């Protein structure tokens, strides 16, 4: 459980023991298991992981956007604090109530703006649709609202752009439209799934600055799903690192980067050329080697018996294969850090990049 300080209201979102599995031809696979985290009002939690770690599935589960055909089975709780102060469990909510929340109090920005926008509607019409439904505005007011939203996301010549189609816009502009669409009903929780991954770095910087500004102005909470540790470091308040469907380490962003404790987090940071360069002492005349994590993620169809990271872990001992370690309680690893590793309190891992 989280321990909110007196000044802090209830978390905007508090996820407890979230698990999601899907039916595949080869059998049921557990994509997300035992995921717990909390996001406070105005805070950003980054959910970090590589392909297949379950970070996107977590965000889609929270939004309730799984395709029926995948036969998703979801367990756990996700307590969301509504605007009126009521706390509701998103996962237990009837579909009709959930639909009333989605796009309204909680909204989502996707990775690929071209495939998430409707190509046959103008950008104005897409925003219009959402605000007519949730804010009950009349046609004229809704269209004016759509234009205001485009201005809010700093789209130049919003008055003309509101009548343009997605294909007429650049990738960066489309992502701004996606954000305008998500922000249209002033959500209190924004889930952003790799929002800048398809963009160039200079455009990424623009979009991140925009999202930061909107968050500051509105006080919304954000769940930021990404694989980019640079973006996490620059942007998040707290980080949860996922591996093979589970959170392996969560901590405030400064703590996590200053001293990662889970061997996977250590490895992930040591892999970064920028980090390697800062830490590595070049052997005379030789190129410093990146510290690669050997091997690859095991298949979700044949998970290892114990810790999922054990087959790739240099600190593995026999006990690691006995059972999946639990996430440590807050405080046991210092501060609000939580780590899923049986060896974490033995000795600090310092020589990661050496």
């Amino acid at each position, binding site marked *: 459980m989280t321990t909110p300080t007196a000044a802090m209201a209830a978390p905007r979102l508090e996820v407890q023991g979230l698990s999601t599995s899907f039916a595949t031809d080869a059998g049921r696979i557990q994509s997300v298991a035992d995921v717990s985290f909390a996001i406070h009002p105005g805070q950003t939690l980054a959910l970090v992981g590589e392909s297949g770690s379950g970070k996107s599935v977590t965000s889609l589960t929270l939004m309730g956007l799984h395709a029926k055909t995948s036969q998703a089975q979801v367990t756990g709780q996700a307590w969301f604090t509504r605007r009126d102060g009521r706390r509701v469990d998103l996962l237990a909510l009837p579909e009709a109530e959930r639909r009333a929340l989605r796009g309204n109090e909680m909204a989502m920005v996707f990775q690929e703006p071209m495939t998430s926008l409707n190509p046959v509607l103008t950008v104005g019409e897409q925003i219009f649709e959402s605000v007519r439904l949730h804010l009950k505005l009349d046609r004229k007011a809704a269209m004016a609202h759509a234009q205001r939203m485009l201005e809010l996301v700093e789209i130049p010549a919003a008055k003309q752009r509101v009548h343009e189609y997605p294909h007429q816009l650049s990738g960066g502009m489309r992502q701004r439209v996606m954000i305008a669409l998500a922000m249209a009903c002033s959500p209190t929780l924004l889930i952003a799934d790799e929002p800048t991954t398809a963009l*160039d770095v200079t455009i990424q910087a623009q979009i991140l*600055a925009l999202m930061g500004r909107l968050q500051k102005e509105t006080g919304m909470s954000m769940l930021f799903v990404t*694989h980019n540790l640079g973006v996490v470091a620059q942007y998040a308040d707290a980080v949860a690192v996922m591996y093979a469907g589970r959170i392996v380490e969560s901590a405030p962003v400064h703590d996590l*980067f200053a001293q990662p404790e889970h061997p996977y987090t250590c490895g992930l940071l040591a*892999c*970064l*050329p920028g980090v390697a*360069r800062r830490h590595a002492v070049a052997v005379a005349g030789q190129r410093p080697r990146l510290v*690669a994590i050997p091997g690859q993620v095991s298949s979700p169809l044949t998970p290892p018996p114990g810790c999922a990271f054990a087959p790739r872990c240099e600190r593995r001992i026999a006990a690691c294969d006995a059972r999946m370690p639990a996430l440590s309680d807050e405080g046991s690893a210092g501060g609000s850090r939580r780590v899923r590793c049986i060896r974490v309190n033995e000795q600090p891992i310092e020589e990661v990049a050496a």
Partner: protein
Amino acid sequence: MNAASMAPTPGDNLIEVRGLRKYFGTGPHPVRAVDDVSFAIRRGETLGLVGESGSGKSTIGRLLTRLVDPTAGQMLYHGEGASGQDLAGMSQGQFRPLRSKIQIIFQDPYASLNPRMRIREVLGEALDTHKQARGAARLPRIHELLTQVGLRPEHAERFPHEFSGGQRQRIGIARALAVQPNFIVADEPLSALDVSIQAQVVNLLGDLKEQLGLTLLFISHDLDVVEYLCDRVVVLYLGRVMEIAPTSALYAQPAHPYTRALLAAAPIPDPAQRRTIPLLQGDLPSPANPPSGCVFRTRCPHAVAECASADMALRPVGADHWKACWRDDI
């Protein structure tokens, strides 16, 4: 040939690119994907080619491997014994024997391997095409290649779908190495891979380059990897060269405003170094209708009226360091 195409080319060059252009489409406004680009690649170095989408970096890689034909310009190749064969002027037939010397590694390891061919056939096809390691020597050579890229000989009998992304990229590297090239174009070879796997492939590329004495053109948008892997860097914007410099000089003292903006936009993986980013406003202009004068001026924070008619010639700013910006006061 104008002044801009006379880039500096000192030292022992394997490749010299001079005034290279590639226009796509016809009519009054073709897309100028590569527009008067000149640079040299020295024997044994790793040259980084960086830029954003639409900067022309991949097109240059495809021009050098003759996967697309240049509109104008020269690409001089100084192979062993031969002096300055112009790749640009060759027919595909003339270029064919050189293909074993000039190889490419593609971005998408999923799309660049034939799903119906066993790895033995993928690598064997490359050997057959260039009549290397024939007969009894063929299978041992294939096993040797697989070992060289960190795979196992028994992988030869498998199909591409049985491999992960990182392993497929290793196969792509093995295929490029199969015909014993001395120059490899690596076109965003890491973009489709997760970071932990990227590090494995970066180490592999570095090792192979040293062992085999390869010359590498490393095309990437990831500035951190480029800094780590490359000896010198060419920065492109809208089909033009903005800056050429040794890696350490480029990252320590970027001379061109675009390079500075690009470096500043890359997020640093360290929360202690957060910055209020000096934002580059706006989007890339259309390469079919680039701005007059300096192509970067529409987004440049230092642009003045004269930039509209400025010459894009490279100007020296230090040892082996060149920029395409006429303003020396910024």
